């Protein structure tokens, strides 16, 4: 990550999910887009508040499906190729193309590939791993965000963002604190 001018954004700390969600909704309503909430456990309302809706995005799901199909087809065609063309052998008088037997490994590979794609897909879409992130610069963030505090971050990249106004805007929700976050 190259050094950037100015700050990453303003981050407000709340004690309860409710306050966070209120603030987030308001921010979204007043036109902020580049922002994010940070919570110690999944909080759907927060995501909705900042206008993010995974179920409609379906990124992970798509990748997962794709992976599954690839895995299944790959294994089934491998089995068929091996038994019919690569080295045809009379096994116990069974037909070369014993598809019922081939289903099992194909089935397992479907699941294997689907599962892996889901996991890696999720990480990729989340741009993880990212051991470094500006928000970690915020005091209390470390101790709070993964334990019992709720954060709302308005990012400087947002066109509507201005240090003074945005701070005032956040202050209006009586957060525990509002601090500037460096890159």
């Amino acid at each position, binding site marked *: 990550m190259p050094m950037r001018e100015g700050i990453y954004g303003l981050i407000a700390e709340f004690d309860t999910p409710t306050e966070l969600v209120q603030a987030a909704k308001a921010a979204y309503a007043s036109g902020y887009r580049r922002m994010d909430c940070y919570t110690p456990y999944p909080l759907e309302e927060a995501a909705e508040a900042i206008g993010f809706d995974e179920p409609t995005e379906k990124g992970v799901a798509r990748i997962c499906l794709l992976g599954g199909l690839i895995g299944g087809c790959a294994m089934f065609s491998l089995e068929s190729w091996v038994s019919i063309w690569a080295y045809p052998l009379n096994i116990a008088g069974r037909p070369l193309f014993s598809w019922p037997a081939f289903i099992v490994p194909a089935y397992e590979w479907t699941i294997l590939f689907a599962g892996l794609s889901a996991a890696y897909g999720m990480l990729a879409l989340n741009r993880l791993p990212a051991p470094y992130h500006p928000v970690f610069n915020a005091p209390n*963030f470390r101790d709070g965000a993964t334990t019992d505090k709720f954060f709302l971050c308005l990012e400087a990249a947002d066109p509507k963002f201005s240090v003074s106004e945005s701070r005032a805007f956040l202050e209006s929700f009586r957060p525990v604190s509002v601090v500037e976050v460096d890159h």
Partner: protein
Amino acid sequence: MATNDVSPQDPVTNPGKNWMIDPKTGELRVLAPGQTFRSVTEKIARIVLTSQTPLGWLFGFVMAGGLIAMLLTAVAWLFLKGTGIWAITMPVAWGFAIVNFVWWIGIGHAGTLISAILLLFKQGWRNSINRFAEAMTLFAVVCAGMFPIIHTGRPWLAIYWLFPYPNTMNVWPQFRSPLMWDVFAVSTYATISVVFWYIGLIPDLGTMRDQAKSKFAKYIYGQMSLGWRGSARHWMRYESASLLLAGLATPLVLSVHTVISFDFAVAVLPGWHTTIFPPYFVAGAIYSGFAMVLTLAIPIRKFYGLEDIITMRHLDNMAKVMLATGSIVAYGYGMEVVMAWYSASRWEYFMFWNRMFGPMGWAYWVLIACNIVTPLTTLWSRKLRQNIAYLFAISLIVNTGMWFERFVIVVTSLYRDFLPSSWGTYRATRWDYMTYVGTLGLFTFLFFLFIRLLPMIPMSEIRMMLPQAKVKHEAELQTEAGD
């Protein structure tokens, strides 16, 4: 002692007359009341982050290490001499190795079931136990996976030829063989379990990173958590990913033991060649799995004073699941016998007569006693279900019983088959026992490492379950403002 960290006079654990009963429903609470995000977090995180290792833990750890040494001896000798050191012979060419394999895999199943199926069914109570149930799965699969590899006595070959890859011989695996199916089922099962488990860990690793004091711990957990920061977007994708994984793990876990049962069901041997195996193998697996979860959960919650996170409600539910699956298994046994009689197949008939009253009949009756009689008669009583000592005892009994089930299926079907001239018998050797007990050691060893190094209870999911985790809606806020 670690329990010192969790101060006894912590307000949440004040002992009041059935304070664990939820007044609204009258049911047992899933969690003790009055806990905060931070209290649960600290209680769980401290177990790992505390600097002083509990003596009890050390002791168990060393014991397990000893057993592993024994396992290594047995396996080394096996590679040196060949499978002849085991009791297996003609006609009983499969023995402990396969019995243990099936038994361990079965145990694994409960973990996946709890984390996946109960998740799909939105069973909130699973959250307290799914983490170490999954860990148990992993370690059980490790123990299980060992056996197919070593049971040829020449693992360098087993590994070399059981996977399909282009080789100079132009020869490929034989995909009609159930053993081949096992290779894929078990490897997939292992991989998916690891992934699922790790994905579940990520947020908690984040917490650990942030709770940790020492630089080293911060660094390690930091790397492992992949920089998790609890962003709302991440959470959403994370949720759908784990939902998908749960959705995949469910058919997987059902398929794995089905495939294992094919090892027998696909063979021509009376006592193996039966269509009822897949369902009752799966049921049996879950049966033994939950028994194992109990075996682990009961001492741990006592030892680390987690009574108000792993509550009586959990134990009670698990006992109920055992009751259900146990009944399915019982039905399976019954059905086998009925079919033997109804099919009028002399092979089936003789096999069962022999299995029950033949020279090795005792094994059959042990399994009936352990799997059917003892648990299924007693677990109906709520009183007994909530008697921790009894649950612990029953869990051990069921584990034994399920081991004998596999023993009966493998050995007593083989030792007297089609041609009377080739009838034989089976007497386990010291090496068989050393290998089996050794894997128990390996399992415990890994589990001890796990509870010492990783949060054994998913903190983020516990937080979700706390009342204050809910977002209050306008209406509620109004009323609050009004007061």
